[in-house]
């Protein structure tokens, strides 16, 4: 039986990288006494997969991992038991039972929504609602991307699903492709916005939170984004 577990990651935990978060959860699951399934073979390991790696320095309200368990308690019990084992900064938000047919977490990811705050002294005076509307209205958004072979350019526009700016709170929100084939790192989009405004870009200016990770229950042409846990159910 497969569970999809949603968690948040804040505070000092943002300095813990993806691989260490995986190792952290392997231990936490043991401590919580969760009846997780193990792979076969000489050195069995827990059956666990993460949806989308979160970069070091980012916070999140919408991280997901899938685990396979041998027996079920209840969503509520599960969340409580695992939360009792969490270090300050990670909180389990929900646990849903997935239908047999569900694809794995990583392959299911279609998009992610980010909220960007600006550090003190870095709030961009040039950023306004009309600027963002203009930015999104471009027919194409050509950006440079570092690859193994060097720098290439590509059009970001098809991978940008939504972008708004909250002038009162000085917060930028956007939803971009986060699938394994087309993942857009938040810094890439931010750089495009700054370039459009001819502003100096400093990656350190931002406090980025991943708000949610989505799967697509629509089609490629007409997407319907839902939180990754949408296809699961409480148990």
């Amino acid at each position: 039986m497969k569970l999809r577990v949603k968690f948040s990651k804040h505070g000092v935990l943002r300095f813990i990288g993806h691989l260490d978060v995986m190792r952290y959860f392997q231990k936490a699951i043991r401590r919580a006494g969760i009846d997780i399934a193990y792979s076969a073979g000489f050195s069995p390991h827990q059956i666990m997969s993460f949806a989308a790696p979160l970069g070091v320095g980012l916070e999140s309200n919408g991280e997901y991992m899938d685990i396979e368990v041998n027996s079920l308690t209840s969503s509520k019990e599960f969340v409580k038991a695992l939360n009792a084992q969490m270090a300050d900064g990670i909180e389990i938000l929900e646990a849903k039972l997935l239908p047999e047919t569900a694809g794995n977490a990583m392959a299911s990811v279609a998009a992610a929504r980010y909220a960007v705050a600006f550090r003190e002294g870095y709030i961009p005076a040039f950023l306004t609602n009309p600027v963002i509307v203009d930015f999104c209205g471009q027919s194409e958004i050509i950006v440079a991307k570092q690859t193994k072979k060097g720098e290439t350019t590509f059009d970001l526009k098809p991978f940008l699903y939504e972008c708004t700016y909250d002038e009162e709170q000085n917060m930028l929100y956007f939803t971009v492709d986060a699938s394994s084939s087309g993942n857009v790192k938040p810094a890439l989009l931010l750089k495009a916005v700054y370039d459009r405004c001819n502003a100096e870009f400093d990656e350190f200016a931002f406090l980025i939170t991943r708000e949610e990770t989505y799967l697509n229950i629509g089609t490629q042409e007409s997407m319907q984004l839902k939180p990754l846990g949408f296809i699961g159910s409480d148990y």
Partner: protein
Amino acid sequence: MRKLALSDEILLNIEKPARYIGNEVNSVMKDKNSVDIRFAMCFPDVYEIGMSHLGIQILYDMLNRYEDTWCERVYSPWPDLDSVMRARNIALFALESQENIKDFDFLGITIQYEMCYTNILQILDLSQIPFHACDRDWDCPIVIGGGPCAYNPEPIADFFDIFYIGEGETQYRPLLDLYKKCKAEGCSRKEFLIRASQLPGLYVPQLYEVTYNEDYTIKAYTPTVDGVPATVRKEIVSDLTNTVYPQKPVVPFIKCTQDRVVLEIQRGCIRGCRFCQAGQIYRPVRERDVNMLKEYAVKMLENTGYEEISLSSLSSSDYSQLEELVTFLIERCKEKNVNISLPSLRIDAFSLDVMEKVQDVKKSSLTFAPEAGSQRLRNVINKGLTEEVILKGAALAFEGGWNRVKLYFMLGLPTETDEDIRGIAELSDKIAMAYYDTVPKEKRNGRVQIVASTSFFVPKPFTPFQWAPQCTKEEFLEKAYTAKHAIMEQLNQKSIKYNWHEADASVMEGILARGDRRLCTPILKAYQKGCIFDAWGEYYKHDVWMETFTECGIDTAFYTTRARSLDEIFPWDFIDCGVTKEFLKSEWQRALHEEVTKNCKEQCNACGAASFQCGICTMKRSS
């Protein structure tokens, strides 16, 4: 939320920021206003090394059980952060509270190897604590050192207020009580230190004066204040079962060297290998009760979530209840999908059976530590491992499917000849031959792989070899070439791989190991010239060190290659580790006569450790 000492900007621009943020599972947070004593426990090396050290986990747990004390941890900032802290004048902080070390009551530093001495100075420097104990006032924490290198604290004597000689479990409570009392009475720091020096096991270097003969050997070693004891006797835990041991060790976020539950099964060693310091200073052997170990193993696994457990001790095969313990762990761990990482065991039917059960035979290799190539030299060092035993064990293992063997040797042992060195090659070859003799062609899984490694022998205080001259760098390298060529001459040379250690670092280790107080100056100077992380090959600056010794008028040969007379007073002679100098002397003589001494289980050799009245010394022997 806890505020970090380092800004996001710094943390995002250094390697592994997780080293500096604390917040690990089982780390202890307390309200600083509800405790009397703030204790910073330091391992002066990088986080991943320091977090792997059992001793700190034990003391961290013990001190935090005290309601009036909050013990936190601190490790050496890696060079990338080190330079940022210097450039921006950021003071060193403890992981838990993220507050400055300088504001703590105690800074405890474990000193596990000589090559960390400059890192100790880095800790003091970044903490903004004066290097010299005599320059400190009550604004600074009491800097207290412990661990194996505290058995010769003299090369770093100036930098510590106190050294704790022996096992940490026993005297911290009395020391903390004394500290509170002295603070309440408004004592001076000096008065506190004088009173601390009267507690068992505690050594306050600034209360002693050393005078030298013309040749720089020690003339006398005397306390300068009335009531300060002339000798300091090591402290030990007499009952290792009914004592503190952490059930909830701190679990790091990042992968550390020791990434598993560590269960210490015994302390001390019955063997008495003559080169080994640990074998002498931790006497007598004391075992933990097997039922206690079972209970702790289960609890520690539950409380940490680790997927692996390892047993820790010297010569684990000598633990009397090993079979029962290992059988229990295998059963228990299988059911919970936990791996067991075995310590190096004597290779016999039992250990092979266990190894087969807990690890993938194809991937694992056998380890033997004959330490010397010939039986003659093994008798000199009192390593009770014979060629017959090694070949028998190897043959047994080859039958069981193993085909990889690791061999550990030392070069530069007292009385060593080229013939002994060639013995390394010959023994390796015989093991290879044993493979081809034991395993029929059709069952062979490729060629046998033998890796012979040699390290260079460094004489250590409190061993029978403390009188031995150490080899020069040139002699060391010569010996390594001899070994290499001898291996190339063997029939099965293609199956044997040979590795040897860096010679420079062994020379350096030798200078510090048997050093005296005169080394405090060059150590500080070398640090100020940029020497740090000397234990890390890529940072070790041999030339800077040697140049510094010359500038300070120190002849390094005095510490390394010089032959010492039997009546010489050593810098560490004021420490009483139980084993007497007379015993060590007789062992040194027996070594030169190639005489073997029986182990503690076979017979008592009257080493002196029986004065502690515990462990093996109070048990009936089989013979």
